[in-house]
């Protein structure tokens, strides 16, 4: 099983540039924030499969970000409710939500709308921030981290050995 996971990661994870990692984290954020019934979630998944983003990072952050999504749910609902019930935007939302794209993206839903808006707004800052962090890590922290006892323990695990043998 571990062998299979390692093979899977090796086949897909040949790009390790800071940009690829940055895009993976930013896209994982939008993917995790969007609800299941929004078509945008599935479009993101296809984008990740088709484009050269770091898949390991995407999978890792797609597991971590939903915890944040659960915490942010009330905030997203409040933002969505405020936007959708704003009288000045009523005509705009009527046009958008009754269109086929609007319906596919479930834009009349408070959570689908606000998570999409927040995701799109944070996409570039998240990409840029993640990329910077990767560069910083590689330049200044990588050596120190690799000397840590915990990291050495992890490197001794079977999964890491299989991963290394495939890399």
């Amino acid at each position, binding site marked *: 099983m571990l062998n299979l996971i390692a093979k899977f990661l090796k*086949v*897909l994870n*040949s*790009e390790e*540039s800071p940009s690829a990692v940055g895009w993976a984290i930013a896209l994982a954020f939008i993917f995790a924030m969007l*609800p*299941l*019934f929004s*078509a945008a979630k599935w479009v993101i998944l*296809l984008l*990740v*499969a*088709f*484009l*050269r983003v770091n*898949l390991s990072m995407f999978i890792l952050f797609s597991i971590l970000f939903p915890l944040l*999504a*659960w915490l942010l*749910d009330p905030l*997203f*609902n409040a933002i*969505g*409710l405020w936007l*959708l*019930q704003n009288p000045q935007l*009523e005509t705009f*939302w*009527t046009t958008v*939500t*009754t269109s086929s794209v609007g*319906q*596919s993206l*479930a834009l*009349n*839903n*408070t*959570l*689908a709308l606000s998570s999409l808006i927040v995701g799109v707004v944070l996409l570039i800052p998240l990409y840029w921030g993640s990329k910077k962090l990767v560069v910083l890590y590689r330049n200044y922290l990588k050596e120190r981290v690799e000397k840590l006892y915990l990291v050495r323990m992890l490197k001794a695990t079977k999964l890491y050995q299989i991963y290394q043998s495939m890399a």
Partner: protein
Amino acid sequence: MKLFRLSGIAIVAVFGLLAWILITFFVNDWISDAVESGGSKVNGATVSLSGSQLGWLDGSLQLDNIEIADPDDLMRNRLQLELLKFDLSIQELLKGNFHVDELSLKSIALNQERVQKASLYKKNSQGDSSWSWPETIVEKSKSVDPNDILKKVDIRSPELYQQFSDKVSQMRSSWETAASQLPDEEKLNKHKQDYQQLKEEFKSANTLEKIKISKELKQLTSKIKKDKQQITDFKKQVESDIDSIKEDWKLLQKQVDKDTDLAMSIVNLTPEGMKHIAASFLGEGAAGWVELVLDNTDVIKKLATPSSKEEVKKPAPREGIDIPFGNEPVRPSFWVKKADVSGTLNYDSMVGRVNGKAFNLANRLIPGNPMSGELNFVIPNASQQKEASGQFNFSVVANKQSTSPINANFSVSNWPVENWRAASSALTIRDASANIQMELRAGKEKTELTSTIRLSDYDVQLDEKSSSSTFNHLVEVVRSAENIELNIAVMQQQKDVEFSVTSNLDELFFAKIREELQAKAEKLKSEVKQQIQSQVQGQREKIEQKLASLTNYKQVIADKVNLLDKLN
């Protein structure tokens, strides 16, 4: 750096291919197996289908040739459908809602013979199966338990008996308080002694002394008169209280009869009582239909009377709130937007055609999208080569102002009735042709169901076990009539239900049945009365003892007054 990841595209393509193979070659069989095993468990006997097709892009599911066996006769199917197709909204399904854009039913067959014997399945032990509701309801409606009735009725006898007993005790206690203010035995005896002494002194006294004694006697007499007046007033009060309490006691004893009558009226007016009467008069089938209509009207009425405040549902995690725009309605969790049925209709050996449509069948009414439907059928050679036809239509509107937001009409002409067991199964009407018209109007405050059933071209049979002069006479009357016309009216206003059955043969037909029912009702009434009497028996004995002691008290006061009378 290349923009696209070829390996990713390849993997998505492989996943797509795998999904297609899975759906094409395996999923349809899995769905068929799941429907067959799940359906069989619910039905209690074999449910089978020839195949299923899942449309993986449009979210449609088609089930072909569904056969639902009859658990009571494994060689027959209770229902067969040539095709059942759902067009499901996948997006709503991901939100946890079940929205069917279109539901199609093609060709319905009822009560058909099976090629292979079906198998019995153990039914789910939780509650009654929806298939068996008519039998269950009729069984329940056949027996009326006096204890059950008393639980449902506000029987006031025990409470009023207790209150009366307390009132008698309080009265006795207030008398005793008042009596303590009256001249006591010692004072009365002193008056007597003083009076006799003054009389004696008067006899032996001289003139001047006599004047003095006379004055003293006058003073004493005045005191005695005052005391006597006090005692007499008290006596009058006691007598008046006793008369009043005896009157109350008489009235209270009638409370048992009142409670019995109330319980009996509840038996006759509640849906339970009404079903009991319907089952006795019209037979189990009719009672079941009345139950079906009333129960479902109550359910639909809840949908038709939305709360004054539009409730904003608290969203479940990762669900959000849907805000409607334009003509978009607030979406219910279950919604069949459109359903249609068409094709052949097989009933026993009769073959006809059926078509119908229904719109917006949902678990709540959708403003601007009324729930409505209509169904028509025709069977060319149904009853004695006559054409049988029927029509059913209904509408439910979300309108608080409307007095009747639910309207339904059902009519059938020339429907063949093989056996109609009526009058507690004593009488069987065979091979009749029935014309039925049923109309339902239901509002927030009132539900009215009127129905006319006209039976003609029939033969009558009497159950040998029920043979009696009454029923023999009844059979003669029914045979001599050209047709039987029954008018059934049910009106439910809040908790009150009125049920009436009239017929063109009322005079002779129902008079005899009523006689039978009357005897049953009298027996039940006596059982109910006994139950109430047993509840108040203890209190009754206590009250009677207290009343006897009050009468004694009255005598004691009367003796005191007599004593003072002698001193005047």
